[in-house]
């Protein structure tokens, strides 16, 4: 519930309003439940099956799914269990999505608070930079980064994806900082002689937590999509490892003979992205019903 508590733009009354609005949003609540189930499956799933994600089963090559079959979601042409591989891919996609979001939240919050708090020429140059980056086909730059600095290097992949996801965050955070810095408690902090870094860290950033949490929820599916996109192009996660994107890619190649290889990971990916989007939209509406 920490997110709902942090949603408060102003104390007590608005907070209860936000929580009520979130509770009334059945789509967002349902999404949260499904999401929790998916996360749980990603964590526990591989232990619920006797197969390893990279184990080959020569008896069952490209076996179709079936409730009584030994591989109930089928196998790929190498005899690897699709259920385990999908959950493994889900886990990897989630981890990369969340960590890359953390990177982009870090950059976005730092950039936005500094631009908004200092204002003037600093602000206009920093935000001009963001505008310029917004207009670029930055996924192409990510493609270059991913190809050039080692395919399958997950740390590099994380940085490359995280480095493009911070633009919206920086804009939102700057806007919030602009309105925050005119408030009395910031002035009071300044009057007590507190330095600028301390004001930013102790007074501005904690008050941004709600907004940041909402936009982070909306950034995660975006970055999961980027990662899957790169893996789909064969530039991200490499064999025998799997992410949802690389599984969809494998499935698309086999779609003529083994359509389940496409349908299973595609279904999981769609459910994941849809739930994150629904939850993020719900949180945003609860925080600020007029934004959209």
């Amino acid at each position, binding site marked *: 519930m920490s997110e709902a508590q942090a949603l408060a733009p102003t104390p007590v009354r608005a907070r209860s309003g936000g929580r009520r609005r979130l509770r009334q949003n059945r789509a967002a609540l349902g999404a949260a439940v499904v999401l929790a189930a998916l996360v749980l499956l990603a964590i526990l799933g591989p232990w619920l099956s006797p197969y390893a994600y990279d184990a080959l089963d020569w008896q069952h090559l490209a076996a179709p799914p079936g409730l009584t079959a030994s591989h109930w979601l089928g196998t790929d042409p190498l005899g690897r269990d699709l259920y385990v591989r999908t959950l493994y891919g889900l886990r990897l996609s989630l981890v990369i999505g969340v960590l890359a979001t953390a990177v982009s939240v870090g950059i976005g919050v730092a950039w936005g608070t500094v631009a908004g708090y200092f204002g003037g020429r600093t602000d206009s140059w920093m935000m001009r930079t963001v505008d310029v980056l917004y207009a670029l*086909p930055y996924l*192409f*730059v990510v*493609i270059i980064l991913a190809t050039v600095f080692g395919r399958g290097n997950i740390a590099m992949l994380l940085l490359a994806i995280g480095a493009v996801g911070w633009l919206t965050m920086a804009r939102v955070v700057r806007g919030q900082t602009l309105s925050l810095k005119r408030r009395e408690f910031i002035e009071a902090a300044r009057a007590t002689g507190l330095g600028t870094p301390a004001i930013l860290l102790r007074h501005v950033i904690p008050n941004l937590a709600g907004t940041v949490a909402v936009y982070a929820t909306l950034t995660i599916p975006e970055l999961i999509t980027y990662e*899957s996109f790169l893996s789909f192009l064969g530039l991200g996660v490499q064999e025998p490892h799997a992410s949802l994107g690389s599984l*969809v890619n494998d499935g698309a190649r086999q*779609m003529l003979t083994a359509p389940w290889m*496409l349908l299973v990971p595609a279904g999981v990916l769609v459910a994941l992205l*849809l739930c994150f989007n629904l939850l993020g939209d719900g949180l945003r509406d609860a925080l600020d019903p007029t934004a959209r």
Partner: protein
Amino acid sequence: MLGYAVRRIAGTVPVLLILVTLSFFVTRLAPGGPFDEERALTPQVRANLDHLYGLDRPLGVQYLHYLDGLAHGDLGVSYKLRDESVAGLIAQGLPVSAAVGFAALGLATLCGIPLGLWAALRRGGAVDYAVTALATLAIALPAFVTGPLLALLFGLALRWLPVAGWQPGDPLYLILPAVTLALPVGAAIARMMRGSLLETLSASFVRTARARGLGPWRVLLRHALRPALLPVVSYLGPAATYVFTGSLVVETVFALPGTGRYMVEGALDRDYTLVMGMIILYGALTLLLNLAADLVYGWLDPRVRHE
């Protein structure tokens, strides 16, 4: 208006230069080069090749040389695809990519705006509910998921449309790629149009127009539509960016002979000039479409021009 347009066009040149500089140095700083083959070349052959393409000169000189060529409209020759100039490769692939991209943008706008308006006018009704739900789903679906799924359904299962490939002049091959790209963009436009019309309809000038006794259609078309279109128009720039990056996926999924595939191939092969050509092509296209969206915005909203 003309002054505004000129100022904006001049503003895109430095952005493009930054993009060119950035990608030039990032691709060259990476390990590996275009002539690293499985079978190593003899040092003499290697040196000759490097000398022929100017790769033995200092990086700064190479950069200035590239910019000089660029200023004369020369994108250089491909290092890997023998006898091909980058401009020639672009000329071959661009008609296909452009056809798919513009068909997708057109489809998204022509379906998205009316659907959004319809949903807003029937707020709370079944239409509104259906449009909102479909839009939420379509936005969540990335092109590399919808593409194969649509090919599976309409190509393999129903056999209505070709699964993949391209025949010049045959619009059947255009349908699935364009729909795949248009789905999320059209959904985003519909959602934005709905929200923005609802907001405009509750504005005081609309209430005034109603109070003057104007009919609902007149209020909508003469008063509410123009301001309500503003956010949608400003979204067209990012939408174009999405369509161009998406064309990469769509060209892979549907095996189209467009320009998108050169991006990945070129980067993997360290074919520097080819990658740079693609970056410049897509960068310029993105910037131009963003610019076009801004100009339409300035035309719709006179306040922007005078800032």
